[in-house]
């Protein structure tokens, strides 16, 4: 099939970007979206032009490196699917496709469709861990974890850090990403000791990085390739309020 692409090209953070039109000829429906871009790039290179820069690595939907705004939907039309796992059979011959990078103040563009998601790492640095140094761990089965807790924790831990939630959110809020980590650890006994400290520190950095505030719109969850549920956001809200109340108590004592 043939498609018309409008791809965002931008040399670097400093320069202005713009859309450039490309024709994608005889694309196989079995190609992945990124393989379709590979084909375009091979042609561009042979024509002596600059290939389209886009982030990707595993190409199996788990590393979270890829991520494109495809016709206004983060990771494209298919639900619960990363860009690299999106296949061309979901498009029709003659379709026009707009391809944009994630857009958010906290995700500055590096080149073309490549953005800098370093803010996510800094949110984790603020407390997205259990402080347990190598060697200090007790016997694994010493502390039973109810299956439901483990499963709920796993649901939240499935986040691949792709940033689609931020890209899709009208407020560019990082609540779903941050909430998934908070919920993952807060749902396990191992996460309890640092639970409230963790949420306070992570939310502080999340805000400092310049993400917007959440107004419970829900675009994040619907764009999330791992279908992380909005209840991780409620969970984080609750833990932050509790943390504040707890602190307040300490203060008044």
């Amino acid at each position, binding site marked *: 099939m043939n498609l018309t692409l409008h791809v965002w090209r931008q040399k670097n953070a400093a320069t202005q970007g713009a859309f450039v039109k490309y024709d994608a000829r005889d694309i196989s429906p079995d190609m992945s979206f990124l393989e379709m871009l590979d084909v375009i790039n091979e042609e561009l290179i042979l024509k002596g032009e*600059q290939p389209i820069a886009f982030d990707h*690595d595993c190409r*199996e939907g*788990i590393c979270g490196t890829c991520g494109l705004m495809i016709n206004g939907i983060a990771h494209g039309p298919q639900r619960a699917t990363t860009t690299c796992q999106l296949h061309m059979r979901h498009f029709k011959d003659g379709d026009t496709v707009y391809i944009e990078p994630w857009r958010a103040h906290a995700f500055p563009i590096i080149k073309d469709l490549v953005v800098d998601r370093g803010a996510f790492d800094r949110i984790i640095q603020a407390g997205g861990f259990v402080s347990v140094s190598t060697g200090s761990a007790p016997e694994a089965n010493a502390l039973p974890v109810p299956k439901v807790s483990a499963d709920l924790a796993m649901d939240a831990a499935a986040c691949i850090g792709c940033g689609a939630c931020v890209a899709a959110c009208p407020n560019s809020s990082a609540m779903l990403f941050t909430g998934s980590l908070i919920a993952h650890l807060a749902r396990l006994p191992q996460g309890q000791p640092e639970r409230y400290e963790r949420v306070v520190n992570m939310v502080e950095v999340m805000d400092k990085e310049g993400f917007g505030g959440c107004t419970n719109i829900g675009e994040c969850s619907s764009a999330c390739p791992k279908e992380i549920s909005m209840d991780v956001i409620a969970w984080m809200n609750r833990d932050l309020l509790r943390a504040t109340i707890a602190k307040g108590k300490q203060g008044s004592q």
Partner: protein
Amino acid sequence: MAIDTSVRPQTETGRSTADFQSTTLDANAPVGPIETRWDTHRFNMKLVNPANKRKYTIIMVGSGLAGGSAAASLAELGYNVKCFCYQDSPRRAHSIAAQGGINAAKNYRNDGDSIYRLFYDTVKGGDFRSRESNVYRLSQISVNIIDQCVAQGVPFAREYGGMLDNRSFGGAQVSRTFYARGQTGQQLLLGAYQALERQIGLGTVKMYPRTEMLDVVVIDGKAQGIVTRDMVTGKVESHAGDAVVLATGGYGNVFYLSTNAKGCNVTASWRAHRRGAFFANPCYTQIHPTCIPVSGDHQSKLTLMSESLRNDGRIWIPVRKGDARSPDQIPEAERDYYLERKYPSFGNLVPRDVASRNAKEVCDEGRGVGPGGLGVYLDFADAIKRLGAKVVRERYGNLFDMYERITGENPYEVPMRIYPAIHYTMGGLWVDYNLQSTIPGLYVIGEANFSDHGANRLGASALMQGLADGYFVLPYTIGDYLANLGPSKVTTAHTAFAEVEAEVNERTRRLLSINGKRTVDSFHRELGHIMWDYCGMARNDAGLKQALNRIPELRAEFWENVKVPGDGAELNQSLEKAGRVADFLELGELMCLDALHRTESCGGHFREESQTPEGEALRDDEHFAYVAAWQFKGVDRPPTLHREPLNFEYVHLTQRSYK
């Protein structure tokens, strides 16, 4: 190509890099009863005074399970760590793709597992081409890994009682595999990543994402630093340290199509090899039996589905050649469940190499299914009958979804189609018992070293090895080296750094200036075809010789005719690829050479000339019970072969048989 094997007297360290007169390498493996070797060794190692640790800088290249866990653990001990990765975040290392699980000899199932059994299974599974001391240590440590990961909050699967769940995995007859849905690697990596981020936050680790290592700097025979390229600005930089650790993963991408991530490369290892680190058993590559078949030339990578699928799925093909009927039209009687037929006791759970080779065989017979006849069925109909769709969904839901996403077929209704693909590389830089390469101060961990898996890796053992190296082995052994040496005075001001930087810049300039007629990918694809055809699932003398003629030609053409657009001072993905492919073009040749010299079959290395009447791999222990470690002598010059003899005091050499 002739192989030069000059003889020299044994050196006690076996580490000297300058000039080699010896054909035998010493692994520095401790002696004595195997159960106590690691303890004794740890006791004999020198310790670095806690107050002095911060005076040492360790350069960690790679932030996967091995690199991430090592960087975090070393920083916790008090060392300065500089950690590098080519992705935009350490969380994205390809360890994340591991699905099936991680082994540990916990014996929670009370089904007869033990450290000794895991050790035994690993040596046997590796077809007697691994080092007993290392494998035993690995089995011992396996139990601590699970403890550590659980404490980090890794959400392993649980039973209703709240205890950790296990499953049996590829070739093992005990249930010793721990898993987190189909995302075990992801969850383990996030655990290591979080530990790493914690240290980054504390300022003990300096992280360099989107930074590719392009060379090692060796001064007075010791590894003292690396030269890197900032993939965003193109800036080439030097970093000095007291020791350098490579945790850069496997080189499966030499085949172009593999289950590795697009960025996986051999550059770090290969550059170190060119500077004196021996490359061991390069031809030991593992083919994974349960991958999604190729759909066309556009294919950019292959997707693996955890072989845990083989626990409940049944593999079959039509009895008749070229049977074009849809699977549901083929009656039971006309189906050939060939693994169950040939290997009654293991059935669909035979080790990967056996399963893969059998798939290739039946497809070569023309009984394969799907496009191009390159596929066999993996059928869950019985499992769904037996367990119900719900249980099947619980166990494999995300794998089934992945399959449907890629193929557009629903595996709950039609059987999956699978075909083998390159998956793991047992070969890698040679390391001694301390995980130190033949360059003093250069350590290699994880898949990048030639590892503890011998000629074939058991399922769920790579995650175990990566984390064992990173959390529990390297932090001890590197201390011994540093304590003996004292903090080094070398800085990036040393002329050696300037020289290496110049070489790196020159190479970049050359790649950009060729401006030929072929893209980097087209060369990579062609190399991949050569490797897959002649150095893939089955190898023979004639084929390997042919490959050894074609690869140098292709390499020559690459350096005359490749087209790399753009310039070096920006994000330039073509340039990144070009550098990696250039190294693959040299590695590929060494792999074929190694495969050619090893005229026996063992594990993942199958030489058609050496097989049992039933078509099983036939080892030649008399001549090949050794590790082949190759020394670089220059491109287009034969490398030198060094042998590390393998002796088996505990697990006695037997022909592997899964009948």
